[in-house]
C-alpha cells in the first residue's frame, strides 16, 4: 500500500502546499528582518489577494472576456499591485506613526489591523464561501511514473519558485537589496551610510504583502474556494514556517515553508490526519530546542 508511488505522490502534495506557505512566510520574515516586528495582519493581506482575484476573475468576468491564460496573468499582476498598495497603506496608517514608540504598541497595532481587515473583508465580500470557477484552468493531469501530477499544481509550484528566485536575486544582486540587507543589520549604521531607512521599510511593506496577496490568488486558483477568515490558518502555518527556517532569513522562509508542507503531508500520509498538526509541532519544538534560531538563522554579518 505505501509504495514508492505513494511516497512520490505525497511528496508532490506536500511541496505544493509548502510552496504556498513559503510565499506567505516571506512576508513575515522580510518585515521581521528589517523592523523586528511580527506583522500579524499579513494573513489578512493574503486573504485580500484571494478576494481581489475573485473580483477580477469571477465578478468582473475577466476569465470570460480575455480567455483564461491572459486573464490569470493579468490578474496576477493586478493582485500584486493592489495588495502591495494595501500593504503600503497599512504601514502608513498602522506602523509608521508608532516607529519610535514601544515595541508592544506596534504589536497591538498589528493585531488591531488584522481584526479590522478581516472584518472589512467580511463586510465587503460576505461571510459565505466564494468559489473561483473550476473551469478557469484546464484539468490536465500528467502521469509521471506511477503518480499523477495535475497541471494546476505544477503552475502553483512553478509560480512560487519563480517569484522566490526573483526575490532572492533582487535582495542579493541589486543596490536596493543591499540597502534592505544593510537596514536589517543595523538601522543606525545604515542611516549613517546614507540609506533612507524609512524608504527601505516602505519597500519591505510593499514586497511582503504583494507576495502574500499572490499566494492568496494561487490558493483561489488551485483550491477554488475562499472565505473571509482563511488568512488565520494560513497565517499561522506560514509564521511557523518562518520560525522553522529562522525568522529574518529569506532563504530560511522558503526552506521552512517547503519543509512544513512536506512534514504535514508525510505526517498525514503515514500516520493520521488527527495527528498531523501534533507531529508538525513536535518537529518544530525539536528544531527550536536544538537550533533555537531556526534552521538558517539570520547571521549578524549576513542578515537577509
Amino acid at each position, binding site marked *: *500500500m*505505501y509504495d514508492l508511488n*505513494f511516497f512520490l*505522490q*505525497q511528496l508532490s*502534495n*506536500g511541496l*505544493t*502546499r509548502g510552496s504556498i506557505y513559503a510565499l506567505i512566510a516571506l512576508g513575515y520574515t522580510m518585515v521581521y528582518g528589517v523592523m523586528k516586528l511580527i506583522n500579524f495582519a499579513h494573513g489578512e493581506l493574503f486573504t485580500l489577494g484571494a478576494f481581489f482575484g475573485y473580483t477580477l476573475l469571477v465578478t468582473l468576468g475577466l476569465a470570460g472576456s480575455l480567455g483564461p491564460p491572459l486573464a490569470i496573468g493579468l490578474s496576477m499582476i493586478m493582485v500584486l499591485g493592489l495588495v502591495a498598495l494595501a500593504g503600503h497603506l497599512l504601514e502608513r496608517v498602522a506602523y509608521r506613526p508608532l516607529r519610535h514608540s514601544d515595541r508592544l504598541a506596534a504589536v497591538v497595532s498589528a493585531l488591531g489591523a488584522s481584526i479590522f481587515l478581516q472584518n472589512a473583508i467580511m463586510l465587503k465580500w460576505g461571510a*459565505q*464561501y466564494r*468559489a473561483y*470557477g*473550476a*473551469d478557469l484552468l484546464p*484539468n490536465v*493531469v500528467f*502521469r509521471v511514473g506511477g503518480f*499523477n501530477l*495535475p497541471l*494546476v*499544481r505544477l503552475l502553483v509550484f512553478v509560480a512560487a519558485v519563480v517569484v522566490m528566485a526573483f526575490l532572492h536575486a533582487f535582495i542579493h544582486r541589486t543596490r536596493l537589496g543591499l540597502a534592505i540587507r544593510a537596514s536589517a543589520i543595523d538601522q543606525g549604521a545604515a542611516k549613517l551610510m546614507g540609506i533612507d531607512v524609512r524608504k527601505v521599510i516602505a519597500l519591505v511593506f510593499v514586497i511582503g504583502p504583494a507576495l502574500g496577496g499572490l499566494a492568496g490568488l494561487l*490558493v483561489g486558483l488551485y*483550491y*477554488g*474556494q475562499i*472565505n473571509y477568515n*482563511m488568512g488565520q*490558518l494560513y497565517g499561522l502555518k506560514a509564521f511557523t514556517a518562518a520560525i522553522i527556517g529562522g525568522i529574518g532569513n529569506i532563504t530560511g522562509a522558503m526552506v521552512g515553508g517547503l519543509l512544513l508542507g512536506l512534514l*504535514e*503531508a508525510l505526517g*498525514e*500520509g503515514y500516520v*493520521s*490526519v*488527527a495527528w*498531523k*498538526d501534533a507531529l508538525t509541532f513536535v518537529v518544530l519544538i525539536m528544531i527550536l530546542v536544538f537550533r533555537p534560531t531556526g534552521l538558517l538563522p539570520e547571521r549578524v554579518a549576513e542578515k537577509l
Partner: protein
Amino acid sequence: MRKFLCLCLGLAIGLFLLGPVSPVRADDPIKIGLMGPVTGDWASEGQGMVQVVEILAAEINAAGGINGTQVVVEVGDDGGTPRTAAMAAQKLLSSNVVAVVGTYGSSVTEATQDIYDEAGVIQIATGSTKISLTGKGLQRFFRTCPRDDEQGRVLANNVKSLGFTKVALVHDNTSYSKGLADEAREIFKAIGVGEVYYDSIVPNDRDYTVSLTKIQAANPDVIVFTGYYPEAGLLLRQKRELGFNVPMIGGDATNNSSIVEIAGKEAADGYYFVSPPALPDMKSESAAKLMATYQEKYGTLPSSVWSVLAGDAFLVLVEAVKAVGPDSAKMAEWLKTGLKDFPGLSGSITFDEHGDRVGEVYRLYKISPDGQFVIQ
C-alpha cells in the same frame, strides 16, 4: 352627553353579558393547536408551518370540514425558546385544543412535552429529531420527522444497495459529522459492507490531496463523507485533479448548491447524498396540490421540508378525528393502532408504539452532469 355615555356603557355591559350565554351550537368547530417558532431565530420555519397548515385547513373546510364539522387552527408562538414555548402551550390548552402540531426545535418540544401530556392532549412534533424525545413513555406524543439516527441508517443502506462493498469513511471531527460517521460505521458492520479506511479531515485545511492519496492507496469503491458542503466540494475537485475516479456519497449537510460551484460541474457530476426531500421531490398527489396552492398564494415554495412535515401532522390528526371523533385518548390509541400507511405529503405515514414514524423520510439524491440535484 352623560346619558349617551350611560347608554353606551349599558350596551357594552349588555353585550358582555350576552356573550357567554350565546347558545352552544351542536357543530362547535374542532380546534387543533399549532405551536411553532413564528418569531425568533427560526421564524422562517415557524411561518412556513403556519402557512402550510392554514392552507390545508382551508381546503378541508371548503370540502365540508371533518364529518361536517369545521376545523379551526389555533396558533401559539413558541419563539424558538423553551420558556416562551411553555407559555404558548398554556395558551393553546386554555383554548381547548384536542391536539397540537409542533414544534420545530428539539429542546423547545422537550420543554412542552409534559405540559401537554398532563393535560391529556396529543402532541405531534414536526422538526424535533432528538432521539430521546420518544423514549419517555409518553402515550400521546408522536412525530412526523425522522430521528437523528435515521440518516446514518439510510446512508449505509444506500451504499449497500448501490452495490458498493469497500467503503472509505471520512468525517470532519465535528459532533454532527463524527456522530453520523460512527452511526453509519455500526450499520456497515451489521449489513456486511467492508471498511477499508476510516479517518477525519480538518475543516478549512483546503488541501485534502494527502488524505485522498491515502484513500486511493486503500482502494475503496466508494468514499463516504459525512461533513459539510465546503469540504465535500474540495474533496470532489481534488479527487478529480488527482485522476482518482471513485464515487462519493455524503449526508444532508452537503445539500447545498455551492457544492457544484466549488467542485465544478464535471467533478460534482455523479455525487450522491441523502437528505429529506424538498417539496417538489415529494411524489404524492397531495404534495403537488399543496405546492401549487402555496406557490399561488405566496409566490414561492416552502423554504424547508419541516413545514411540510407540520402539514403531515395536521393531516393525520384530521384523519384521527374522522375515525374516532375529537377525543384525544381515543385518537392517540387510533394513531398507534388504526393508522396504517396514511398517504401524507412526504410519503406514507405509520407510527410505531413509541410514536416514532415508521419508514424513511430520507431520500437519495445524485448530482446530474448539469449540476442539478436529482432525486433517485
